[in-house]
């Protein structure tokens, strides 16, 4: 596991051609690792008949909603969390 809870990470801002599980709204955004989960098969390759190995580390990453949406209409302390694979994250410290 490269990242640890509490670490600031930035989500890669790339246009992946093909199946992937990083929603567009969070690409390029910076958040904080909340949890480091186990590793799981890679959906990006498994979606095309591959076995999805080697497994990839998965993280629960939290973001301030106001950092994600320019006009976020909710409360300032609201947060949004996504499960993101390690290869989509970069150190942001």
């Amino acid at each position: 596991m490269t990242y640890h809870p509490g670490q600031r990470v930035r989500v890669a801002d790339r246009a992946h051609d093909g199946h992937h599980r990083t929603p567009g709204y969070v690409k390029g955004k910076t958040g904080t690792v909340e949890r480091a989960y186990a590793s799981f098969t890679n959906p990006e390759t498994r979606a095309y008949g591959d076995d999805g190995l080697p497994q990839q580390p998965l993280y629960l990453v939290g973001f301030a909603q106001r950092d994600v949406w320019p006009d976020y209409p909710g409360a300032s302390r609201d947060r949004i969390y996504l499960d993101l694979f390690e290869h989509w994250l970069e150190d942001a410290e």
Partner: protein
Amino acid sequence: MERSVHDRGGWPDDAPIDRSEHELADWELLIDALVGALGGHRLMNVDELRRGIESMPPDQYERASYYERWLFSIEANMTEKGVLAPGELDTRIGG
């Protein structure tokens, strides 16, 4: 950056959320079970199911009901893998 049609988070959508309850119809349960059965036989995994759904033409994706998308994906995957011949399901229905 352009978004795929399935990537809905924050997509502009003013439509009210229809909260009516619907029991799954028999045909919907059937489609769900087909996906599970194909998965059990290692003929299609959940990532392939999702990829198949995401390959729907955007307007078709938005018009289709939830299990209609699954049906599209099963057919696309099974045809791709040669379990079904192209158009075989159409022929069987007589369409």
